[in-house]
């Protein structure tokens, strides 16, 4: 069986095998062995068959998908547009094959990026490195937050409406709302893991600004810290039918001496549907620690 390294994830994943070039998987419940501590980087998931069902892939042909003469989705066709002329980002997206899944490598999502830490954040980051990134909030089934959620191999779906863009993450079955109706950020709102996101169009770019985060977000599985001063600006660009790019600007003066940028690319998964994935870490949990 091909194993999928899933950096730093101690939770059960429902996708245990993947063939290059295909989104294949089996209906299995996976248990990560031998334990979260050793799982930080390039781990091997041990899969235990939970159901005799054979591998399956939801095939849901989408009529709007442009196709080549032989019926194959034409992933280099122009990006679709909504009736108001904006690029339509809707679709199911996934990190490209060959990109190291997750973001638990030596530098996490900041590979190749110069990150200037504040001293306190640097100490946290270093400690997490020495601790093999143990303690990431998702160990407790808490939401990844924006950049970490996009860094996983599991796909996400964008649903674009005129005043609201939804991001439906397959992983943990978590959703996120991006308001594009011109509203202001609320002055008083409890901090959240995904923050409060507002988007505006700058030409063909959807620019999303998010603030209002909880104080202990991890930006990636490696453990780049963030504080409640975090502001993330995302710039979404659908290059063509099959390709989406998001540039993230991480601006958190309490943790970093200057903002830094990360860009992630995504490939469209045509003619399919998200599969439910629920964090089932509770199966090993002693007790629930909070709601």
């Amino acid at each position, binding site marked *: 069986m091909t194993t999928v390294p899933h950096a730093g994830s*101690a939770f059960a994943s429902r996708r245990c095998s993947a063939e290059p070039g295909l989104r294949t998987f089996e*209906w299995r419940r996976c248990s990560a*062995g*031998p*334990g*979260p*501590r050793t799982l930080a980087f390039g781990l091997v998931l041990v899969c235990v068959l939970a*159901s005799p*069902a054979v591998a*399956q892939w*939801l095939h*849901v042909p989408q009529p709007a998908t442009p196709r080549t003469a032989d019926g194959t989705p034409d992933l280099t066709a122009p990006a679709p547009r909504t009736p108001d002329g904006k690029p339509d980002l809707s679709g199911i997206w996934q990190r490209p094959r060959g990109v190291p899944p997750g973001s638990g490598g030596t530098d996490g999502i900041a590979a190749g990026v110069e990150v200037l830490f504040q001293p306190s954040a640097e100490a946290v980051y270093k400690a997490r490195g020495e601790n093999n990134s143990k*303690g990431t909030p998702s*160990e*407790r*089934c*808490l*939401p990844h937050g924006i950049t970490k959620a996009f860094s996983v191999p599991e796909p996400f779906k964008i*649903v674009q*409406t005129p005043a*609201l863009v*939804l991001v*439906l993450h397959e992983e*943990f*079955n*978590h*959703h996120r*709302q991006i308001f594009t109706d011109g509203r202001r950020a*609320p002055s008083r*709102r*409890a901090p*959240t*893991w*995904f923050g409060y996101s507002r988007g505006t169009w700058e030409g063909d770019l959807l620019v999303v600004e998010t603030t209002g985060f909880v104080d202990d977000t991890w930006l990636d599985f490696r453990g780049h810290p963030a504080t409640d001063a975090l502001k993330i600006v995302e710039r979404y660009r659908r290059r063509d039918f099959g390709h989406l790019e998001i540039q993230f600007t991480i601006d958190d003066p309490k943790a970093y001496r200057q903002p830094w940028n990360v860009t992630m690319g995504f490939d469209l998964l045509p003619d399919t*549907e*998200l*599969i*439910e994935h*629920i*964090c*089932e*870490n*509770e199966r*090993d*949990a*002693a*007790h*629930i*620690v*909070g*709601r």
Partner: protein
Amino acid sequence: MTSIPARWIAGSIAIALLLSGVGGAQERAVPRTPDRKPDLSGIWRSASNRYLTDLSAGITRVSFQPWARAVYEQRRAGNGKSRPSDRCLPRGVPSMMLARDEPWKVVQTPGAITILFHESLHYRQIFTDGRPFPDDPAPSWLGYSIGRWEGDTLVAETIGLTEETWLDEGGHPHSDALRVTERFRRGAVGRMDVDVTIDDPKAYTAPWTVTVRFELVPNADLGEQVCAVAPADDSKN
């Protein structure tokens, strides 16, 4: 003709306003999408916890299959112990719709209705693009839902629900044969009634239906509620 005391009339009006959910909302037409379907979009919450507690509330007799009765009695005797929602797991369909304090937001688009839950940040999709059910849907916490319009009623059917979900907090069980049908009727701007039918011949000798009322929560923000578990204990591994 007998005259009706004025205070009766006043009382009746007050009750009518209460029943309408949002005072005055009755007069406004239910919004519609460009294709003239009722637009169910908005934030909704159950009018009470009645059906969350017991989905069979008001039904004289739910006819269990023997094993299902035994499981139900056991769960009741155990006071709901090992209820999945107590372990941060989804309540499943229909139960996740029913909690008074856990509103959900409908985002209606051509081809799909997405329901965003306050509880645990989860979401659910009801596909209205005419697709069939998958041949062999794997058991999942939210199942696989497809919907169609019958006049002004959205009829959503859900299969593929894992047997681990409970139909309510009281512990009504189900089997892998469960098919849940929800008929969404937005009778007024501020009110939606959903007929929930439980059809599971392996667990119940006959289908049963309840009607659950939901209220619009205007001008609200869904917020984010998360459920945290303790991390797995490595020492066990």
